Each structure stands twice: as structure tokens, then as C-alpha cells.
């Protein structure tokens, strides 16, 4: 668990982070979102003491971070940055094995851990272990970056715009894989991004920052439903907000049981999002869909009227 309480950071006259209080529960995915220069990266770098905070308290599992040796603290915390920061003179395998070697693991342990991680991140050992970073594409290099951060199995993962430099297709793919990894590993993740869609997709807890302070924090759904001010609302996409919220809601939670009327022609799986359901209604010119399970057996139905009504209720 990471707790920041009334934390500030001053660089000379300038205040980069201004009195923020934030609690990230164990195993949760927290995204810091905001425009550039809002202090989100500084906040992240204070957690592994790359930057020392000026005021307030930062604790890790109840211990003040000043009480840890900074070097040992950093070895316990995974760190991924946008430019990957891979060592250009080391092979992929050597880059990934860095922290375990620093922790003095035995040679075999390091080797087996490196292969395990490379397989986990879709980098076949035979093909990639002996490549150098400059021989990799952007997406492959960032996979190596994530593997390196996970190498010593840290509880905490800090990610500073890790997918910011990738093309949209690769970015989306890596986001999906990160979500899958997180569902299995339950790391405590602090993720900095300026891409609200990325944050909405990945985060359990969303923190919107501006001018060094926290404007609003909460679950993605809570923020979408009740944005605190026009700034948060514009970050969340203004008019698109309704659709973004629908993207976070699963069909199963809003369907009604099969009625006496004939089932609708269009079928949609229950674990799809409401956004996808709306899209299908528009495409098929239908205001009703039949909801099916994974074996394509009807389990309920979804009507446009009901979705719209419940969205209003949520707001009220």
C-alpha cells in the first residue's frame, strides 16, 4: 500500500507538486492523469525517491520511505518509462536480468526468470534473448522494458507514460496485455498518462491532476458520472462522456430477463460493454438485442429505452 499525505515538492521558487494526499490500496491500479507539467511524473518519481519530496509524508506499507535505503527501495519497485531506458550495450536478456543480478540471485535463477518473463511478454527467447535494443521495434523494446521492471517480482510497479511513444495499434495491444497481466499478478500499479482513454481502460482508481494539485479522484465510473468541474469534464471527453461511461458498463448488469415477446434478431454476448451494444443497435437499426452467453444461448434481452432510463437514474 502506498500513502501520500500532504506531499509537496518545490524546485527553488517553483512548486511542482502542491499538497497532495493519495492512498493507493495494495493490488490496485491507480492512474495519474493530467496535461503535461501538472506534476504527475514528479509525483511518481517521489515514490521511488528519484526525487525527494519537500514536505509531507510518503509511506510504503506503513513505513516512511525516508527509512528505506533508496537503492534497496528502488530494487523493490518496478519502473517503466516512455523512452524504455534500456541499456543499448546490453542484450535483451541481460537488460531483463538486471535487478535480479543486483539482488545477487544465482546465475540459473536469473536465467530461468528471464526466460519466464520473456515468454510472459510474448518475446520468444530463441529469437530475442541475444538481440540488442536498437534491433527491436518500439513495441518490442517496451515489452522488454516491462519485463525488466517485473524481473525481481516487485509488489509495486511505477509506469511513466509507458506507451506514449508507440503507434495506436501497438499501444492498444500492449494496454490489453497489461490489463491481462494485472488481472493475474495484482501488482500495486501507479500509472502516469495524459491519455484519458488509456486511464479509463486500465485504472481502478483515477486521479486527475492540474497545476501540481489533485482536482478529483475516484473510480473511473464515479468520475464519469460526477466530474467535479469543467476541466475534468473536458478531460473526460465532454459530449463523448456518455459513450465512455457506456464502455465501462457491462451488458449483463443492465439486461432484463427474456420476456414473452419474440427475441430480437441481433445477438450480443453478455460480457460486452454497453457501448458495443449501442453500436450494434445503430448498425442493425434495432432498439432491442438478445443477450447470449459464451455458448450462444440466449440469457436475456437489452432494450434501448431501458439503457437510457438507467443511465438517467445513475446520474440522479
Amino acid at each position: 500500500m502506498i500513502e501520500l499525505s500532504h506531499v509537496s515538492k518545490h524546485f527553488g521558487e517553483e512548486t511542482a507538486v502542491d499538497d497532495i494526499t493519495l492512498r493507493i490500496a495494495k493490488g490496485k491500479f491507480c492512474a495519474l492523469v493530467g496535461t503535461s507539467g501538472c506534476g504527475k511524473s514528479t509525483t511518481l518519481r517521489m515514490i521511488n525517491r528519484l526525487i525527494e519530496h519537500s514536505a509531507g509524508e510518503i509511506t510504503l506499507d506503513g513505513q516512511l520511505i525516508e527509512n528505506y535505503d533508496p537503492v534497496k527501495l528502488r530494487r523493490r519497485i518496478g519502473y517503466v518509462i516512455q523512452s524504455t531506458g534500456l541499456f543499448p550495450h546490453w542484450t535483451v536478456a541481460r537488460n531483463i536480468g538486471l535487478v535480479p543480478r543486483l539482488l545477487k540471485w544465482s546465475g540459473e535463477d536469473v536465467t530461468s526468470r528471464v526466460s519466464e518473463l520473456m515468454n510472459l511478454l510474448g518475446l520468444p527467447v530463441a529469437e530475442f534473448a541475444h538481440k540488442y535494443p536498437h534491433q527491436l521495434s518500439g513495441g518490442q523494446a517496451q515489452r522488454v522494458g516491462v519485463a525488466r521492471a517485473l524481473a525481481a517480482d516487485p509488489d509495486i510497479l511505477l509506469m511513466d507514460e509507458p506507451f506514449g511513444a508507440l503507434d495506436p495499434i501497438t499501444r492498444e495491444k500492449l494496454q490489453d496485455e497489461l490489463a491481462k497481466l494485472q488481472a493475474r499478478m495484482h501488482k500495486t500499479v501507479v500509472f502516469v498518462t495524459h491519455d484519458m482513454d488509456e486511464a479509463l481502460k486500465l485504472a481502478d482508481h483515477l486521479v486527475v491532476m492540474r497545476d501540481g494539485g489533485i482536482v478529483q479522484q475516484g473510480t473511473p465510473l464515479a468520475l464519469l458520472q460526477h466530474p467535479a468541474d469543467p476541466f475534468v469534464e473536458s478531460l473526460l471527453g465532454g459530449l463523448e462522456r456518455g459513450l465512455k461511461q457506456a464502455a465501462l458498463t457491462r451488458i449483463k448488469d443492465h439486461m432484463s430477463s427474456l420476456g414473452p415477446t419474440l427475441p430480437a434478431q441481433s445477438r450480443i454476448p453478455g460480457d460486452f460493454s454497453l457501448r458495443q451494444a449501442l453500436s450494434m443497435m445503430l448498425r442493425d437499426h434495432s432498439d432491442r438485442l438478445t443477450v447470449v452467453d459464451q455458448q450462444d444461448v440466449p440469457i436475456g434481452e437489452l432494450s434501448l429505452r431501458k439503457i437510457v432510463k438507467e443511465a438517467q437514474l445513475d446520474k440522479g
Partner: protein
Amino acid sequence: MSLIDALPTPKLSRQAWQPNVVVLSLGVVMLGIVWLFSTVHVAPNRIVPGTSYSLWQAIGWPGALLVTLLISAMCFLALVPTRTNYRAILVLVLVVLLLMPFGLMVAGHWLMDPDHPQARLGIGPAYWALLFILLLCLVELRLKLGVNRLTTTLLLSAVGIVWWLCATWWLENLALIQEFRARDQQFWRAVWQHIRLVSIAVGVSIVLGLILAMLMRRYAKLQKAAFATLNFLQTIPSLALFGLLLAPLAWLAANVPFLAQAGVSGIGTTPALIALIGYSLLPIVRNTYIALDEVSIETLDAAKAMGMRSYQRFWQVRFPLALPVLLEGVRITAVQAIGLTAVAALIGAGGLGTFIFQGLGQAAMDMVLLGALPILLLALLVDSGLGALAEALRPGGRS
């Protein structure tokens, strides 16, 4: 894979071939030179200037025709410079280089009177120019074919060995060889002295330069002062610096017996080394400083964030990444020191410069060459050797 990576790379073979102007013009210049200037001259003894002979006089019409043919072939191949043709030009250049000592042998056989063992065969301007231009061609071909430095060095070494074999076994009449024969022990001692002076000067400069560069990184104020001093030192002419050191060192040697015992004196090795180190420091310090400073902040930041301690960050990340640029500094310094050490002969430090200054004094140009050629060769060897090392040490073997 990013979208940029997915774009097809333009294929070279699709382009219409432009003639390689460099090789073409070098070839034309070579043709002009071998026909217009003298290739060898024969002198009855060491001092008297000899008679010059042109190409066809030296190796006969068939030989002259062969040379013309080979060079013309290079020009024709350069008109359509495909990769295969570049390879062919490379082979032709090497063939000419290999044939050149045999040309001297033929010339010696035809022009020298066996009854005059004192007579000597001198190398003329066309011959030197041809050698020089062929080396220029090699540089161009190396770039065009992307041959690495190691291969080039090996090829040239092979050519060098053939030359050396010819020189030792069959070229006794050559003036240069005669100068060497007359003082071969002195020659090898001078080579050894030269190498020793250069190695000590460069070695000490590397250690001092590393320490100085690291101090300058820590203390910003030192940086300005140190660079100002070193830059100033570099502007003093070498001869003047040797002269300037003469008086204070002589005084020290006379007044401090301990230093005199350690070999310090106004002339000889000590002032030469001091001056050489003074000159060598600037390129070493500058390159070391820049090399260490150039390492990407993000890489170092990542190293810190992974939990590397500061000495680990320096020795495992910063230093190896800086090494190629740092070695480049060593290369420049070593080549510069090899040249400067020639001047050190004037203050009695020995080395190959001795022959140059003796030869100048006696108006014996072949003796000057006996000093100058090995210096040139040494510089080329060190240059390509260290260059190849720096290339091999690029991160991930990247060229």
C-alpha cells in the same frame, strides 16, 4: 512494429547508376601523373642528384602499358559503379599496390650498372603520388562497400608484408634500403625509442585525462580553467615548448640532486615527455569529458531507478557507453603524439626524428625518408588499430 518500420526501404538497385566521380577523377589523375612525371631516379652515390626516368624508361613499354591498362580499367568500372564493380576496382587497386615493388625491381634490373655497387635507385614523385592516390581510392571504396576497418587493416597488412619481403630480398639497390642497411641497429633502436616515448606520453595522458575529466564533471568551475589552460598549451608551437622547458628543467636537475638521479635534465627524455603529455592532454580530456557527458540521461535515470549504486552506474553503464568516443580521443592523441615525437629528437630524446634532422643536415633525402616513412606507417597502424577497436566496442556491435 511501428508504421515507419513497415514502410518499404527504397532499393538502391532501382536507381539509375551515376558514375563514381571520385574514383573516376582519381584514376584520370593517376594516368596523367604516371605519364608526365618521373617514376625513379638513379644516382651514382648518396649525395649527388641522379638522373630521372619516366615510366616507360623504367619498366619498358610492356610494363607501362600494363599499368595504363590497369588504371584505365578502374576508370571504366567506376563509370557503372555496381557493387560487383566496386569489388573489382578494389581488387585492381590491391593488384597495382602489390605490383609496385616489383616495378622497382624491374627498374633496378634495367637501369642499374652492376659494376657500380655504390649507385642507388631513388623513388620519384610519380611513384609516391601513385601510392598516395591508390590509398585515397581505398578510402573511397571502403566507404562505398561498407568494409569495416579491421578488414581494411588486414588487407593493407597483407600488401605491407609483400612490400617488406620484396624490400628485404630483392631491392638492395634502393636508396632507402641502403640507408637502412648502413644503420639498421640504430634504426631499430630509434623505432623502439619512438614507440616508448609515445606509449608513455599517451599512457600517462590517459590516466591524467580520465582523472581530470571526472574532476571537471564534478566541479564546474574547474572545467573552464582546465580547458582554457589546455587550449593555450595546444597553441604553443612544439619546438618553442621544448625550448621553454629546457631552462627550468636544467635548473631543477642542477639544484635538486634527487631529480637529477631520477633522470631529469634540460634535454633528453624528460622535457620531451612533459611536452608530449601537455599536448596529449587536451584531446584526451576533451573527448573523455564529452563522451561521459553524452551518455543519455534517460538511460542513466533508468539505471538509477533500477537500484544501481553510483559506482555501478558509472562502471556498468556510463563508462562502457562512453568508451567508443573516449577511444576516439586516444586515437587522435596517439597519432598526434607519434608526429610530435619526431620533433623531440631535436632536444636529444631520440626516436625516428633523429634520422629526419640528420638527413636534413646532410642533404640526404633518403635518410629523411628513413625517418619519415616509419613515422607515417606507425601513425597509420595506430590509427586503424584503435579505430577498429572503437568500432568493435560500439554498443551492440553497431557500426
